[in-house]
């Protein structure tokens, strides 16, 4: 098991990464001084089909806790205000009070939703995150972002709220659908691209074992990713500046999701596309060696993250501009300085961007 300590103004907490940790949840929370009554939020498949929730519940009960289990339907639709409200009400009816803690067992949707509920129920109760997807383990479980969607946009409502503990059990990745697993790998590649040459090399060399979901390799990689993410977040807890590099590939990625339609591409595929576009833009700008962009492309292909069909460059540009206009008016991109380095740069001349997008067609 790997342990990582995250130090933030909003709280200090440990991230445990390892195999078969869920059945040890009870002992891992022992030192946290939590109340007796706990709420566990998960979705039906994790509770019934794979049996993860019963493992956690049994372990918590063995440690002397009362556990109220609440399931929500899987999928992005659960990240809604209505769902957050009904969750709050259910937890109150289950007898939770301000001394209680709330655990999330699931992917990003469960984590974001449960985190938001924990941040606001009784003005904030202890939150513990047990991410079960690769994306959630390497990305959304560190950083404290919680939130739900509005019809007007994603994540418009939310808070920064740090968990008291994160437990990433790599065994849960075994049951993840292949496409969702690969989608998570895009964020792994992203972290390597912005901050860690070594990790990038490991990904290249161990690609086979990663795709075969070798537990030991995954544990090492996930721990490494959490460390990178934690370092960036520690430097910029409330997302004022440095943290923006975590958006590498996301500007174009969001446009791809919007252009192709949510659900038609995975988040990972969209981000992969966005990273490659950003890398090519960086090469044009003379910031990144062409060879590094080539290595990125090769790795993304290896992980089957690049789609065969390409969205229209003009359509993408429209979405990119609209998205940025909505935020602050200036087009800003995270560009790569070669594998292991990134920077936030304004893109005032759109010719480079247009040509980079067209270059994706080739």
């Amino acid at each position, binding site marked *: 098991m790997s342990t990582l300590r995250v130090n933030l103004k909003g709280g200090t907490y440990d991230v445990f990464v390892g195999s078969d940790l869920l059945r040890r949840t009870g002992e891992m929370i022992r030192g946290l001084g939590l109340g007796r009554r706990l709420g566990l939020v998960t979705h039906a498949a994790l509770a019934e089909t794979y049996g993860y929730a019963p493992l956690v519940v049994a372990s918590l009960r063995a440690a002397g806790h009362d556990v109220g289990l609440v399931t929500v339907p899987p999928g992005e639709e659960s990240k809604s205000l209505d769902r957050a*409200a009904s969750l709050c*009400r259910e937890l109150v009816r289950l007898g939770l009070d301000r*001394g209680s803690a709330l655990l999330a067992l699931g992917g990003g949707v469960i984590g974001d939703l449960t985190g938001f509920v924990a941040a606001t*129920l009784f*003005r904030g109760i202890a939150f513990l995150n047990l991410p079960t997807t690769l994306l959630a383990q390497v990305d959304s479980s560190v950083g404290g972002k919680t939130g739900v969607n509005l019809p007007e946009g994603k994540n*418009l409502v*939310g*808070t*920064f709220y740090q968990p008291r503990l994160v437990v990433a059990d790599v065994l849960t990745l075994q049951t993840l659908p292949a496409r969702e697993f690969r989608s998570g790998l895009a964020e792994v590649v992203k972290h390597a691209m912005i901050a860690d040459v070594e990790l990038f090399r490991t990904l290249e060399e161990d690609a086979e074992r990663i795709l075969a979901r070798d537990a030991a390799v995954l544990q090492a990689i996930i721990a490494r990713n959490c460390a990178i993410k934690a370092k960036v977040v520690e430097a910029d807890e409330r997302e004022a500046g440095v943290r923006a590099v975590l958006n590498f590939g996301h500007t174009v990625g969001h446009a791809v999701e919007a252009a192709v339609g949510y659900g038609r591409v995975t988040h990972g595929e969209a981000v992969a596309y966005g990273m490659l576009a950003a890398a090519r833009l960086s090469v044009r700008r003379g910031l990144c060696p062409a060879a590094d962009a080539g290595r990125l492309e090769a790795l993304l292909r290896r992980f089957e993250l690049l789609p065969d069909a390409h969205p229209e460059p003009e359509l993408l540009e429209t979405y990119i501009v609209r998205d940025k206009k909505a935020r602050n008016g200036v087009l800003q991109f995270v560009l790569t300085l070669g594998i292991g380095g990134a920077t936030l740069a304004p893109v005032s001349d759109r010719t480079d961007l247009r040509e980079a997008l067209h270059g994706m067609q080739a």
Partner: protein
Amino acid sequence: MATGKSSVGRRLAIVLGYDFLDLDTLIAAEEGMPISRIFTTRGESAFRALETRMVDRVAGRTGCVVATGGGTIVNPRNLEALKRSGVVVALTADPDTILARIGPTEDRPMLWGGDKRERIRLLLEQRAGSYAKADLIVDASAHSIDYVVNHILDFLTLHRVIARRTTIHLPSMSESFRIALGPRSHEVIIGPGLLGEVGRLVKDLGLAQTGILLTNPGDNRLFGDRVIRSLTDAGFTVRCVEFADREDAKGLETLTWLYRQMAAERLERRSPVFALGGVVTGEMAGFAAATYLRGLPLIQIPTSHIAQVDTSIGGKVAVNLPEGKNLVGAFYQPRQVITDVEALASLPVRDFRAGLAEVVKIAAIRDGELFEYLEQNVEEVLSQDLRAMVRFVRRACEIKASIVEADEREGDVRSILNFGHTVGHALEAATGYRGPNHGEAVAMGMVVAASMAVRRKVCSAEALARLRKLLQAFGLPTSLPVDAAEVLRFVRYDKKIQDRQVRFVLLKEIGESVVASLESPEELEEALKACAS
């Protein structure tokens, strides 16, 4: 009668450095009921007798501005008494102006019966002869408060009542202090006339130009234009959104609607949210600001008494669930608090007094000096003298801030703020929220908690007596309207139950308090019985 006597009088007093006294308010406090009730239960002549007695009392004082009732100087005896000791200024206005200012109120007994406009015209006609005997008559119909104040100042200078012509500069009469909470530190600005200064005050906070003003219909009608105008003058584009400020509307439905208004405005990270209103508005708008885009800069502009002295400080924001009050919320500090004490003058008297209960609470648990100040300035406080209001609002805010600084999230230090609240909440619940209001319930709760402390011998009987006396002087109830068993039943449902123990804040002496656990239900029952009416 609705010619602006109180507003003009208050500002005149602060410019002159005088105290401000409001005749009707003092009579109402002394009789423990609103003027309208004195009229209905005892008749006009009884009221006029009380009025003459009060005139004699204030006429004996110097260095004060007195606002009288519209009919006070109709009695020549009153006019003479006032003229002997000072200058009498009559403010008049035409019937339409008066009608517009009083709105649809039933609180003015002289206008009862028949067409209001006609009643006003008739009264003015009847009183014209008396008003003509004043030293100065000012028609306030078409003029601002400051214009009228200046006009009176000119007159006083000309007749050498005052030595030097003073000018009105309200912003310089405001005070501010900083709440130290690390990166969440912020300033609290307290003074008269600040609603028209909001734009200038927030200019250096690094806010985006586009924002949103969240308020309620009542506050919007009274103050919305003034705030929006000052923001527009300072270069902001701020849309005003109204929502009901009732406790039963403080739920997720309203919240969702608010979020969608914020989304429609395309607010971004630095877009300010201005919360203009009382407790419910501040809590609800505050929670929306805390959770939209993971937190927008929030400017609290409290207008009710409890919001000004209590809830605008400390960052507690929340909404209700059907399962209970304030179950969903956050601790979210505003970027600035702008407290215009003149807003309190527009409150119904009962609400103003309810707010005084919280001021007494803060003084009792933490500041003996403030408590003494209140004891010695009962008349100024009740009359809403601006200097007195700045003083006690500021002090109450500072004390609350110091408690919050020591303990931002609810721990033991902060919980002394719950003095009187355990029983207070139970009283509100036991009367189905239709009996005493929050402040009145807290007033009774404090007396119960203090008498429990006396029984435990941690508090002197004298301290309890002082507490009771001050609350009574402010027209607040000190004995229970329901029986002990009923209250006890609801104490058990109080949400501040930790490990099945009810925590109580006990007074040690005036200015000092401790948190203790209830030893047995009997202990509380006895204290409750001792406070039965």
